[in-house]
Every structure is written in C-alpha cells, then in structure tokens.
C-alpha cells in the first residue's frame, strides 16, 4: 500500500443552500490514479478546486503530503493559512482545466516555460529544453511559436497538459479535460493522457465522463452522489459489477449519452 498523499477529513462545503460536499472523508495514495465520477453537482470538481486552493472548504481538513492545506501551524495552534502557505502548498499540485485556460498573450513555448522559470527557478535554457520535450510528447513540437488562438481546442488542451507537467507536480488534477472537445479531438487528448499515466510517476485525480479512459488509466474509481462517495472500487469492479443502484443508474445514463 502506498503512503497517503492526499487526505480529506470530514470536509464540508455549501454554496448557498446547496450542500456540495457532505462531511467527506477519503484518501489518495502517492502515485495512485483516481477517477471521480458522478452526476453534475455531486462535488467532484469542487474537490479538485479545493486541492488547487481555488475553493476553500467550510469545514474539515485537507492534508497534502502530510501538511494541512488550508491551515498552518502558529505555535501549537492551527490557524487559517495565509497566502504564503497556500503558495507553498500549491507547488505540489497543478491542474488542467476544462476550458484549457492557456495564456492567450503568450506563445505556446512561453506558456510552458513561464512557471518553470519563475516559480521553479529553472534557467531559460533548462525550461525550454523541458518544454520542448513535453510539447514533443503531446505532438506539438511544430507549434512552439503559435499563439493559443491559432490552435484547435484539442491542441490547446495538449499544451495545457504539457504546461502542467512542466511543473513536475506530485499531483495532477484533470477537470473534465475533454468535455469542451468534439469526440475526435477528445480522443487525441485522452491518448496523450494515457501516455502521461504510463510515463510519469504522478498522482492523478481525474473528473471525467470518458468511462473507457477511466477504466484504462485508473487504479480506483470513486462514485459521487450529493456530495458523498457512495462507491469506491477498482475500475473493472465498479464498471462491471457496481454495487450501488445509483452507480448502475449513472453508468447506464452515461453509456446512453455516448
């Protein structure tokens, strides 16, 4: 059993009257690939956003690499984390977004080198070498000088994956990375992610409706409903013999949709 890299302990979150996460506890081991599935609004994306410190929990604690994410020690007490602590904790994690979120004012190469140079302290040459390698891996070695607006959605998402990997994160968060793409372009992106899963020793948390991809790359699949995990199992077990009625119903609806 791998050591636990991420731990959610009784985490709660509401948006207005809606309970998004309901006293949620779970852990993810180092190097584990976990896919989060479930209907819209069941809290999956909120979990990724919390790990990226984009959303704060209302209650409970989240621990990453043994350190509380939203709290820091002051003397013996745990107090809400300041920006410095959050920045340090963010270094463990990067995220690929549904809408790519590349920087439109920077060319492809610069999108990938910006953070390694200015956050990790790599020299420009080191960062460029790393970026070229990653962009080659995602099949975009010939588009280094393009602006994001000159790329297709699938290409932009592949740049976003290269950009995230250039940070050599411990945890890679993938938030519905193919939802904005048509099936052909989505397949390209999923192929790249299969490569990533094979090649990189990175913990992956992935929110997706691409069930075949989830089956191929995941060590474990978590089924969410109304802010709770109702089923957690290896992909073959969860997809082939779901135990919970809600899981069966959800999987049927996803299959019909696709």
């Amino acid at each position, binding site marked *: 059993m791998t050591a636990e890299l991420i731990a959610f302990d009784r985490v709660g979150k509401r948006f207005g009257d809606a309970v998004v996460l309901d006293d949620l506890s779970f852990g993810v081991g180092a190097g584990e690939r976990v896919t989060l599935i479930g209907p819209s609004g069941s809290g999956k994306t909120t979990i990724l956003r919390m790990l*990226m410190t984009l959303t704060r929990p209302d209650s409970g604690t989240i621990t990453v690499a043994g350190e509380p994410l939203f709290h820091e020690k002051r003397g013996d007490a745990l107090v809400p984390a300041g920006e410095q602590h959050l920045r340090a904790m963010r270094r463990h994690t990067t995220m690929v977004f549904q809408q790519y979120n590349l920087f439109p004012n920077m060319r492809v190469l610069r999108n990938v080198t910006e953070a390694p140079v200015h956050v990790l302290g790599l020299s420009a040459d080191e960062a460029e070498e790393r970026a070229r390698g990653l962009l080659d891996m995602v099949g975009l070695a010939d588009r280094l000088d393009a602006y994001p607006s000159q790329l297709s959605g699938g290409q932009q998402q592949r740049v976003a994956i290269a950009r995230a990997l250039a940070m050599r994160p411990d945890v890679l968060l993938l938030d519905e990375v193919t939802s904005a793409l048509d099936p052909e372009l989505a397949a390209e992106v999923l192929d790249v992610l299969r490569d990533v899963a094979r090649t990189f020793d990175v913990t992956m948390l992935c929110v997706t409706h691409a069930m075949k991809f989830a089956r191929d790359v995941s060590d474990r699949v978590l089924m969410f409903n109304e802010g709770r995990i109702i089923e957690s199992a290896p992909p073959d077990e969860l997809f082939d013999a779901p135990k919970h009625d809600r899981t069966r119903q959800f999987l049927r609806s996803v299959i019909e949709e696709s």
Partner: protein
Amino acid sequence: MTFDWQAAWGAAPALLRGLATALQAAALGYVIALVLGLGFALLRRSGRRWVRLPVAFFVEFVRSTPLLVQLFFLFFVLPTVGIELSAMATGAIGLGVHYATYTSEVYRAGIDGVPAGQWEAAKALSLSRGRTWTRVVLPQAVPRVVPALGNYAIALFKDTPQLTVITIAEVLSVVKAVGSQNFQYLELITVAGVLYLITALVIAWPVRVLERRYRRESA
C-alpha cells in the same frame, strides 16, 4: 463681417507657442493619469478594506468635483500650507489626478474583463501575485482598454484651456491676451479651434493604429 487672414496668420506663432505649452501640460498630465489610474484600479481591488475604501472615496470625490475647483485648490490653497508648485506642475498634477479617476475605471473594466480562468491557471502554476498581474492579467487587460484610454488623452487635452485660470499661457490665454489688444476674436478663436482640431486628430491617430494592431493580434 470679413475674415482677416493676415491677422490670423500674424497670431499663429503666439498661438502655436500656447499650443506647445498646452501639449506639455497635457502630456505630463496624461502620464500621471495613466500611472496613477492603474494604481487606483489596483488599490481598489485590495483585499484590505482600509486600503480599498479611502481610495474609492478619493476617486469618487475627485470625479464628482469640477476640474476647475481642483486647479484652484492646488494653485491657491496648497501654498497656504507651505506646498508651492510651479503653474506647469500644478496644471499637470491637476489634470493627471482628475483624469486618473477616469482611467482607473477604464483599467478596472479591462481587468474585470480578464476571464476568471486566467487567474485560476496562474494559481494552478503557482505564479506569484506580481507575476500574475504583470505577465498574465495586465497584458490582457490593457490592450482591450487602449481605445478608451486614448479617448481620455483627447479629452484631457481639450481640458487644457482651463489651465488659463492658473496663469499657464496655453492657447486660450494667448487668444485672450492678443484679442484684448486687437479685438480680432473671430480670427484668433478660429485659428485656435483649427489647432485644437488638428492636434486632437494627431493624438487619435496612434490610438487607432494601436487599436487595430491589438484587434489583429487577438483575432
């Protein structure tokens, strides 16, 4: 009534000197407006209320009171508390601070127009706040507000006749001074109007060029 071309021609050198003075005050004032306006816009986004609120109050106060009153205040009241500035410095600061309250709103709109996803991507890459502002947000926010900022350059220039009240010898001062001797106001004001028009068009030209360039780049 006939138009005396000779009088118009004769007054041109003095009016051009006035125009040069007006342009000097406008240029200095505009630089102040651009820099200070950005500062106001950033401070108004501060997470600290004690920073945000006083700046918001100051911006509202300056924007809601006439430029003329502010010029009088700077020129006649500040010396009574020991702050003495030259007329040109007073004019540039007056114009600059007044227009900074407008440019701050323009910057604010540009910053608000940068999608939330850009801030989130910067966070996801652990970029520092300073880097996020200077490399991600402002390079996207500023180009889209260049036309509006340029329009304020023209508006600011057109407010330079108000500097006449603080003894700056800009175009209108020259019109008044020369007109009080020869009473040929038709010629003087016509030439002054033409000079204002040509200058405003010249100021607008680079703004339009930049606007087209940024539109092409973001297409």
